């Protein structure tokens, strides 16, 4: 039975048949992404639960925690030699603070009153480098080296 790739998989405006190697790559990518997502969720759910007002000490010590719509965890990407500690508000789409190689980066974009409140509650109370959401996501995925060369 021929495998019919989705539009997003093949990046084409029409549905079309794709080669065996592409099918294998698509399967591999899906499985890998699912595994990463599952691992992140497991790590999140296993983190010690804290109230949001007490989360600051976890952030300062850079330990994983799970608050109310607020959590912090270490992330590692095989393509990068350094791990990063990231504090998220509501989900992986909104990193509030990232710690990488001795520097704290802070998301200065505003989304909602609660997100701003989360930022105040978890601020590590040290000097931070102000970044936009886009740059924060780049730091999380590629490190500050990615921001330095302006990866989109």
């Amino acid at each position, binding site marked *: 039975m021929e495998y019919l790739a989705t539009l997003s998989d093949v990046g084409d405006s029409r549905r079309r048949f794709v080669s065996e190697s592409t099918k294998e790559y698509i399967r591999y990518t899906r499985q890998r992404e699912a595994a990463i997502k599952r691992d992140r969720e497991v790590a999140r759910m296993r983190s010690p639960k804290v109230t949001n007002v007490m989360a600051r000490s976890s952030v300062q010590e850079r330990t994983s925690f799970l608050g109310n719509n607020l959590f912090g965890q270490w992330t590692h990407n095989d*393509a990068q030699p350094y791990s990063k500690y990231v504090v998220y508000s509501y989900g992986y789409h909104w990193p509030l603070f990232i710690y990488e190689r001795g520097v704290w980066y802070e998301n200065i974009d505003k989304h909602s009153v609660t997100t701003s409140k989360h930022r105040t509650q978890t601020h590590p109370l040290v*000097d931070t*480098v102000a970044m936009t959401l886009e740059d924060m996501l780049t730091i999380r995925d*590629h490190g500050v080296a*990615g921001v*330095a*060369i302006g*990866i989109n």
Partner: protein
Amino acid sequence: MRRFISNVHIGYNVVEEVKDLVSLDPIYMLPQVEKYVNAVKSSFPHCNFGVVKDSFNEGARSNIRKVHMYRDQDKYSLGWLGYMDARNAPAEYIPAFTICTPNIQNDKYSYDSTESYRLRTTNLKKAISNARAYLKLWDPVHVVKFVLQHHAPEIRKSWQEDIKSDALAIFEAREGVITDPNFVDELQNMLNVGYEFIVPTLRTKVMEYMQLLQDRQQPTHSQAVLCVRPYLLPSNETQMFDVVQIDDFDSEWAWKMKVLDHTSVTYTEDTLPENIVRKIAMVTIAEEGQFVDGIGLWAQGMYYVTV
């Protein structure tokens, strides 16, 4: 966490100096390379793609297989991408989308092989994702390693000779020493065979001189050095500094340092320690490669200061 940095030289087959590169029109590239570069280009709006000036022949269209990615403000390119079979002695020639950058540690190959800096795939989508993951500012440890591999003689020379040659130069000027190498060899031979000098104090002076010459050949005591790489974040103009400490800077093999031993720390302009700021300011006044006594020097886009 990556356990180590490869011991392989980061040669000029991995990166090129930006001054040697020239931006290239896609019409000169192999169709597959053109496709690859165009797909990657959108992810790197601030980067240029080009080839080495001397290797470029305008008559040969659709022929370029390897394109370097670089930024004008950098000293070295970020890496290259191409469509070829760059494996060492493959059984069969199978071209594939290949990227090469010091940021890659490909465990499929021996860590002492230059292939460990490359990734290859026949799938364009995977190739684009490889480029996005690895083509970025080098890890500061790689930069230090690269500079020490290729420019250590000149950096270490200016670092040490300013200290050592002082004593030697003073002695030579004071005693009026003839520095002809043949004459020096003769003196050394006279000492070795136990020649009795007519003036006994001359023997002491010759021995002292030989000792100074010997000291000059030997590296000075092991010295810890901070290697500082400055760079700017284009989005908010923040000045950043990556600092790597090398404990055995005088060692000929300092570039074989390992990540675990030499982890780097990043500072901003506000958090950079005061003593480093002061030393950088003093070193910057001097010319490139000129050693500032007791402080350090700047060379190849990096600062080297004493701890």
